[in-house]
């Protein structure tokens, strides 16, 4: 179930599946956002933009339109 990183709620984690082609894709990858990477959305700025995510060791803040380029998969909940 693919979603955009910008849609993930605070406190939830997700795994990166791919990044849309754009001028900043390279930079995002160099910062560690590669397919398979698990990230957690930590908090948002007062107007909801930018958002701060935990990338395995550090906090990266991204504008919503930057985060929207990152496609992720949320861990599927086991149905009890």
């Amino acid at each position, binding site marked *: 179930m693919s979603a955009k990183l910008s849609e993930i709620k605070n406190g939830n984690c997700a795994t990166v599946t791919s990044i849309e082609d*754009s001028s900043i894709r390279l930079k995002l990858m160099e910062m560690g956002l590669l397919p398979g990477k698990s990230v957690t959305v930590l908090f948002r700025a007062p*107007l909801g933009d930018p958002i701060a995510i935990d990338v395995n060791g550090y906090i990266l803040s991204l504008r919503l339109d930057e985060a929207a380029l990152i496609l992720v998969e949320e861990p599927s909940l086991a149905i009890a």
Partner: protein
Amino acid sequence: MKIALLGNPNTGKSSVFNLITGLRQQVGNFPGVTVEKKTGTLQIDGNSHTIIDFPGTYSLYPRSKDEQVVYSVLSNEDSEDYPDVVVVVVDQSNLERNLFLFSQIYDLGLPTILVLNMTDLAQRNGLSVDADKLKTFFPAAQIVSTNARVGMGKERLMTAIADMAQAAPERRTPIPLCPIDDVTCQEQEAKARYTYIHQVIDSSLSRVDKEKKAAVSSLDRLFVHPVFGYIIFAAILFVVFQFIFAFAVIPMDLIDTGFAEFAGWLSLSMPNGVFSDLICQGIIPGIGGVLVFVPQIALLFFFISILEETGYLSRVVFIMDRLMRPLGLNGKSVVPLMSSVACAIPGVMATRTIADWKERMITILVAPLMSCSARIPVYTLLIALVIPKTRILGIFNLQGLVLFGLYTLGLVAALVVAALLKFILKSRDKGFLMLELPSFKSPRWGNVGITVWEKVKVFILDAGKVILAISILLWALATYGPSESMKKNIAKAKKESKELHLSEEKTNHRVASAKMESSYIGHLGHFIEPAIQPLGYDWKIGISLITSFAAREVFVGSLSTIYAVNETDNVNKRLIDKMRAEKRSDGTKVYTLAAGASLMVFYVFAMQCMATLAVVKRETNSWKWPLIQIGFMGVLAYFGAMITFHLLS
């Protein structure tokens, strides 16, 4: 031996640099580029080596102007700054991302030292790095662990560097860098490197508690809170503002009176003549006029440096970004704008971290609208002149309010102009933020001290030399003039003084004033009078306007000369009394509320600093932008002042 110091931002790289060079460092420029080059020297076994602190970067492939330098130097062996040894500082608590840059640098084939810094932070987070395992992946690298903030590891690092210097290991075959504009190649490289890095991490990094969930620190909750976040920021700004005014005033007055006394003493001890006049009326006030701003600039950068060292500043950028964007600015614009309140020169230079061309350009163009230190003597003089010393609503000091209002006017103008520029300027790329929020740490006072010292030095040298030279020229233009009219006016002044039976001192003042009126600048003032009359000014004010176009600092000095006030007395009070008494030819007062307010508004908006224009030209690499700046600020100043004058008359 040339050593390059590299690393991600926020790794304590500058702490490492300061640790091994102490004060033996200086700031220069990389050839042809405006990025600052921090060089230092270290002594090892009696030999002196140069170490260059490059701007922090996440990858060799650059995304902003300061990162370009790293690529351009390291990709070109013939580059002047190409190093013999590279030292890469890595944040252990953040190993994966840090190893990306390290692996790129390692693959350049140079003798490489890996500094595992921030040991305390890693420990706090339950992380530990096995240096031996790490070495198996990067066999040619020397690995040293440090905690630069507390000074731990300096010896180890110096020894490692010394070993490198002695052993002079062979160049390994470099892995070629991707061409700078080949994004596909760079993306592939990124994927490949991180795959390798994952292996490295799996082997050498161990976590104490594997399942530690990422949590939001309580400080972060506070600083990004929709209400408290902004209140805290506003409060901090307010406190800093107050502090600077309250505390800077003391040393500023000392410097002021000190220079005035010195000039007075000098004029008495030196033989009479034009040269001693040049020294006492031109050069000494010129130097004093520059130095008097040092306390303020030092204090402002002291605070900004602390905010940055603690990590708080990045949170400010975070909460301000969304508000700045509609104005064409970036959250990162906050720092240059804040710095510009001390002096626009370091403010403009601080825009180098803004990657997007348009956002950076707009920040540079509006930064001088933030009222800088040089405007303060103008503001205080005019406020004391035309604003009554009363209280509003019983508590607010009216004069203080007006001062605050002037600063606010500058800020509002900056934001409005920025928004306008957003529509006018063409975008090249989409702007982005992508900002790391470093963990909170207490500031390293050594770093703060060195930063403040560097910024003050830049101000004194860059701005100072220009202002001094301009002071000399202005003095000349105000002392010399077409000889015919000068002789006439001096004779007239002497005659009038005799008729009024004035003392010798008062006569001298009148003669000095007459001299200025018939000097080149005096003629210029008369010449522009028709243009400035709609603003409520006369030719005498015109003179001061002209002189302060070179540098605002010169304003009060010019007025003192025009109104024949002796520099050594309590200048401000005497000057204010004289100015209050000034009458036009029709008997009305010159300095009415309207005229005074109009002048204040003029100074809020006008671009009156050659030194700043020079820096803007340098940073934007063209003369087009400084000219545009003079243009729009001049228009703002002229019409703003005119409207103010008419509204209040």
